[in-house]
Every structure is written in C-alpha cells, then in structure tokens.
C-alpha cells in the first residue's frame, strides 16, 4: 500500500516543552509543589511512586521477616521487638493501603499523565490545578492513614469500628484520586479534534478512568455514610448504622474494579510494546477494542462473588454471583492470546522491558487461573478466600502482573523523561530476575500455605507452615533488593546516563501509531478520515514477505559486550573525570552497546 498523508494537523506549536526550566532552588521547589509541565508532573508522580514503594515495601519486609523467623508455630514475641499485637496488624494495613493506593496508583498515574499527551501529540497539561491538588491530597491522605492506628486493612467490615481518623484519611485520599482521574480524562479530551480517535493506550486509559471514577464515587458515599453513622465516631445519627451487607456492597461493588486500575492504565501500552518488540502489527486491533468495552462492563461484576452469603435466592447466587466473576477471565485470555500470537516467532530483543512484559502476562495468567477455583461455589469461595491462597493471588496480580507491567513500561519511558539513556541493562536484568523470582517464591509459598489451610491475617499457626514462611521471607528480601537495584539504576541514569538528543517525539510513539494503523489496514477497518495523533506517522507499512524457502544462514559469532556495573560506577566516580576516562568510555563496547 502506498504511503498516504496522515490527516492530522501536525505537531503542536510551542507547547509546554518550551516551558522554562526552573534554575533556582526556589523555582525548583515551586515546580515540585505545583508542576505546570506534564513531564515534570509525571516525573514528580514517579518519584512519589518510588517513595511509596519503599515505605510500603519496608512494612512488608518487617512482616515477612517476623513470620520467617517464627518458631514452633508462633511469631517471635512481639514485645521483644518493641511493638504490640495491634502494631503488627497496623503494619499489615499500611503495607496494603500504601502499596495499593500509593505505589500502584501514583506510578500508574505517572505513566498515564506522560503517555496521553505524548501519544496524542497535544503535549499539554490540561488542568494542572486539579492534578496537583489531587496529588497532594493523596499524599496527605496516605500519611494520615499511616497515622490513624487502623488495624483492619481496607476491608472496612462493619460493624468493626476503625478509628475515625482512618475514615477521614481515606476520604481525603479518595478525593485526591478522583481529582487525578478527572484531570487525566481532561488530558485525553483537551483540544480533541472532531476527527480524532483514541489510540489503544489512550482508549484503555479513558475506559479505566471512567470505570474507576464511578467506583470511587461509591466508595466515597460508603465512607461518608459510615462517618456520619454512630460507628464513624462523630455520633451524627443521620443514616443510622450501615447494614453489614448493604455497606459491603456499596463499598465493594464498584470499588473492586480498582484492583484493575493500574493494569488498565498500561494495558494499551502493553499491546503497543508487543507490536514494537515483534516489529509487527497486532493480530487483531478490532478485537482489542471489543475487549476494552467488555472489560469496562465486567470489572464491575467482579465483586459479585462476595454476595455468596447474601440472603438472595440460590439460583441467582449460582448463576449471577459466581459466573459473573469467573467470566472476566475470557477477555483477559483473549488479550494475552492476541499478544502472544503477535510475539510468536518474532525474535524480539529480550531486554528488561520485554522480560518484564512477558512475566507480567504470565503472572496474570497464573494469578487468574488460580483465582478461578474460588468462584464456583460459596463453600469453596469463603473457605479459600480467607486463607493465604488469596494473599498469593493478590500478590500475583499486583506485584508480578501490575507492577511488572509498570516496570516494563518504565524501562522504556523513564529514560526519555530523564533525557538520558538507561544506565545499565545489567542492573535492569538483575531487577527483573530478583523481582520475578523473589515475588514468585513469595506467591508460591502463600499459595501452598493457603492450600494447606492457613488462615490469612494470623499470628499463630501449625509448624507445618513455617518452611513456607521462610521461603516467603527469602523471596520478599530478594524482591526488595531488586527494587533497590531499580532505584539505583534510575538515579544513575539521571546522574550519569549518556544524554540523548531532545527529540520532538519519542520513536515508540511513531512506531506504535504506525503499527496500530497497519493492524486496521490488515483487518480492513482503516478509515483515512480519522486521525489518532497530531504527530505525522507512516500509514501503509508493508509486512516483510516471508521467503518461499528458508536458506540456512551462516552462524554469526556473538559479540560479547562487557557490561560491568562496578566498572561503570568506578569510572563515573573517578574525580576529576579525566580525558582518558571519557575517551575510554567512548571505546567501551559495553557503553557502545547501550548507546545503540
């Protein structure tokens, strides 16, 4: 197919990239407090995402270490460690809430706030006031959560009485999240042309924001109801004490979809990177559009299995409550099928980004498959749901799948945000191995414990569970070390990475847009009236023809590229940086490899 002109209006003029960089300390501080540039805002969220990762990860490591050092079926005496039984469950609460609403939400927002204007070509920060306010409310809310002394996780099982400060903290945090979601939607719609359509990554993000925006409203309603009830501590008896089941439905029916929030934010980017790595258009762009719509509906039915104990007619419970939850597996399996078909035999470059991507897909498949047995029956659901089996499931879905997807995307876009090439692929691969193996060990240990009947959120257990606690502890520390490697890599990239020329538009945006358009051409759904970005991108790529006969190729001797992180660090810190060092770096095959 011949090249066709792209019907768009070309790149924006000026734009926030021309926004002056702050040069004084005061200017930098103001920029952190109130970022007017979408890239700066994204970078700020990324830094806060990392801070939350370390904070919540530290809580997790304390819990795993203590359980790993348990003996004869008991934890070490808590008093010897300087805290009480309540503190143990408080740390568990903080680990879950901060990891979820801090790390995953903030990092996901960071990626989305950068990706949407970059892909659309608007390069505009739509409503910085709303976005900055939302971010700082989330920060305040999470700090308040960690000072609230709550021990109940985020299950909010009324009539348990959590401290009022906890509900107020959650209120602040959810208002902040809602503001961020609204401003992200504004990013997607600002300056939208009548003939502009959303590309796959933007479609996923918009669907996600609408679904989760609705979900958060129901959470806010439930929290306000509780705060105003006698249970909330204010003793304003307006709506009386919430009914247990009604409250649970109000809280979870729409908010259970929040577990997918992070995964959907990067869902479209995942598809794009599969195309870019395999150098092929996606197997079926149209089916992915259907999948986006189906996921939007089904995320809201995931909660329904919690209705198993509700006094509803049994046939409704069987048909609706159980099947409605199971069926979300169908669009997910379809999505991964399409991705894996596209990747098949494509001989991609296996760097850390792709490794994380494939591991994330595997994590979702394994985590989802092991969740399915929970659903068919209330009898199995509630006996398994309250064991460590579910803790294994949530770690599969949140750590290996969602955070794994984030790492895959971050290794691609974070260097661009920093305007530096990634400092070390070696460290990145160590991060991949440590994270995947470490979290895999923890998840497997949890699953075995659950299968053997260990109830979650426990302090005492039979000794048969102890080896698995030790395995989980080792896995957690390995994952923790790998995250330190990730943070180090990012810091070194920022400080010592080779500078890259400031490009007008990242290559992956053009490649993604072109390959997505090619998918539509292949499926016969291409319409030249519509544009998906302001950037000009090639339309009508021809797939490489497969040769009739495959001639055996001469083996090519691999070039061994030295990539010693230690050498690099030594070189960077050898002050003053002599001409020799710089020249040496130029001729270093390891660095040359990175500069490709």
């Amino acid at each position, binding site marked *: 197919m011949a090249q066709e002109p792209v019907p768009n209006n070309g790149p924006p003029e000026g734009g926030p990239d021309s926004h002056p960089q702050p040069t004084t300390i005061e200017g930098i501080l103001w920029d952190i407090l109130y970022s007017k540039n979408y890239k700066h805002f994204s970078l700020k969220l990324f830094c806060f995402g990392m801070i939350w990762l370390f904070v919540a990860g530290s809580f997790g490591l304390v819990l795993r270490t203590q359980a790993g050092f348990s003996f004869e079926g008991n934890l070490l005496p808590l008093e010897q460690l300087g805290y009480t039984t309540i503190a143990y469950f408080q740390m568990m609460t903080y680990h879950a809430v901060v990891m979820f609403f801090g790390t995953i939400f903030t990092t996901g927002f960071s990626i989305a706030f950068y990706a949407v204007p970059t892909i659309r070509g608007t390069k505009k920060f739509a409503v910085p006031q709303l976005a900055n306010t939302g971010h700082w409310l989330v920060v305040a809310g999470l700090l308040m959560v960690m000072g609230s002394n709550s021990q109940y996780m985020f299950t909010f099982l009324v009539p348990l009485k959590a401290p009022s400060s906890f509900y107020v903290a959650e209120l602040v945090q959810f208002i902040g999240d809602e503001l961020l979601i609204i401003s992200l939607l504004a990013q997607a719609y600002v300056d939208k042309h009548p003939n502009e359509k959303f590309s796959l990554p933007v479609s996923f993000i918009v669907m996600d924001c609408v679904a989760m925006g609705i979900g958060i409203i129901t959470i806010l309603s439930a929290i306000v109801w509780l705060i105003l009830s006698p249970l909330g501590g204010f003793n304003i008896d307006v709506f009386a004490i919430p009914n*247990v089941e009604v409250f649970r439905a109000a809280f979870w029916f729409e908010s259970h979809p929040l577990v997918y929030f992070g995964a959907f934010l990067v869902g479209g980017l995942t598809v794009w990177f599969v195309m870019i790595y395999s150098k092929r258009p996606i197997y079926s762009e149209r089916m992915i559009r259907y999948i986006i719509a189906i996921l939007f509906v089904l995320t809201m039915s995931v909660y329904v299995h919690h209705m198993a104990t509700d006094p509803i007619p049994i046939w409704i419970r069987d048909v609706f409550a159980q099947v409605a939850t199971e069926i979300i597996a169908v669009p997910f399996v379809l999505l991964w099928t399409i991705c894996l078909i596209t990747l098949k035999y494509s001989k991609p470059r296996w760097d850390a980004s792709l490794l994380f991507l494939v591991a994330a897909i595997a994590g979702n498949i394994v985590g989802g498959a092991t969740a399915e047995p929970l659903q068919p029956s209330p009898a199995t659901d509630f006996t398994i749901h309250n064991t460590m089996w579910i803790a294994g499931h949530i770690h599969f879905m949140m750590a290996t799948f969602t955070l794994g997807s984030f790492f895959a995307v971050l290794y691609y876009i974070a260097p661009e945000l920093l305007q530096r090439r990634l400092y070390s692929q070696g460290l990145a691969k160590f991060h991949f191995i440590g994270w995947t193996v470490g979290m895999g060990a923890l998840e497997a240990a949890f699953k075995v414990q659950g299968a053997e009947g260990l109830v979650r959120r426990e302090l005492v257990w039979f000794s048969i569970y102890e080896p698995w606690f030790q395995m989980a502890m080792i896995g957690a520390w390995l994952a923790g070390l790998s995250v330190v490697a990730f943070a180090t890599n990012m810091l070194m990239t920022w400080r010592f990475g080779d500078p890259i020329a400031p490009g007008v538009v990242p290559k992956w945006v053009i490649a993604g847009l072109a390959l997505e358009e090619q998918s539509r051409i292949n499926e016969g759904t291409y319409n030249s009236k519509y544009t998906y970005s302001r950037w000009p991108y090639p339309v009508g790529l021809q797939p490489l023809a497969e040769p009739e006969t495959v001639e055996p190729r001469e083996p090519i001797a691999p070039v061994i590229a030295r990539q010693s992180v230690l050498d690099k660090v030594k070189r960077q810190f050898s002050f003053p940086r002599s001409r020799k060092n710089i020249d040496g770096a130029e001729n270093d095959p390891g660095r040359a490899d990175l500069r490709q």
Partner: protein
Amino acid sequence: MKRRTVLLAWTIVLFVAVLVLEVVYTPYDNSGYIQANNVGEGVAQADRPPIEGPYQVVFVTCEQWQFTFYPHVAGAPTATVVQANIPVLFIVRSADVTHGFYVNTAGAFATQGFQFGAMAVPGYIDYVVWNFQPTAAAYTSGESLYHVQCSEYCGVTASGLGHPWMDAIIFVVPNNSTGTTMQSTQMDGNVPPILNGTLT
C-alpha cells in the same frame, strides 16, 4: 483461517470452559447436603430446599473473641462432640461483628482432606453441613479432633487477645455404642439432637 474466525472460535471455547467449570461444581454449590461432595452450605432463607435427615444439629455463636457451641462439652462451651458418619448441620450466627466459622483440617487434622466453613454475618443465620469421616487410625492416634478458627479478621487488643486466638475444638466419636457413650459422658447427657425427618 481468518483472524475473526480464529478469535471467535477461541472466545466460544473460553466461554464454554467457564460455564463448564460452573456446571461441574453446581452440585457442590447447594445448600442441601451432597453425599458425593460431602458438603452443603448457604444462608438460611425462605427458598432454602428442604434438608433430608438424619442430621446432627449444632448451634454456633461467634462473638469477639470466642465460639460458643450448643450443645457443648460440660463446662467447656468452646468444645463439642459429634458422631462420625452422620452429617452435622452447623447453624452459625454472629453476636457482634463478622466472623468466619472455619474448620481447619490441615496438619494433624488432615483426615478430611479439605477445609470447610461458613461466614458468620451479623443479622443473618448461615449454615454449613459436613459429614466427619475420620479413619480408624485417626481414632486410635487421637486425631479425630478438629480445630475451629475464626477466618475473618475481627480485631485484636494490645494485650494479645483477639482474632488469632479465637478458636474451638470439635471431637468426633465413632457412630456406635462406644462412641455414643463417650459423647454422652463428655457432654453430660446433653448431646446434639439427631433429626430424622425433613428439616424445612
């Protein structure tokens, strides 16, 4: 083959697989007792199907932070004695917050091979049916005991009292004259009633 055909066929296969998973488990998901699966549980409600006897009936009250059986071992409300090979209908309720009535059959209690339980939600009455079938070896080694735990986090106090220590014991005795005598002795004659008719 066209892409649309491939993906449509795959979608149908996945959808059918999900339905099959549900259908396979459907007999299990029933509030009545299913002999083949040895379980039945649900929420007491108007359209509950009739339960065919014989059943032993045990009431369980959950509260922060203990289980109370009725009937129970004399002087020990957190322990009860039931006979093997007669399904036990546990009628579970909560006096305060949400709890989980969870019978752990792991480790030394692994004679059942599967855990079972029901939620105890304030305002509702849940029930679960189970037929204890310990092996002969379990009786001789004293392992026909079953450990009951609260499986829904219900809070702790700073002094160490609370959810992790909310547990109880079920003793299972043989379904013969020796077992009946043991049961009656331990429970001071106040044994669980056995219903032979249809419980509606």
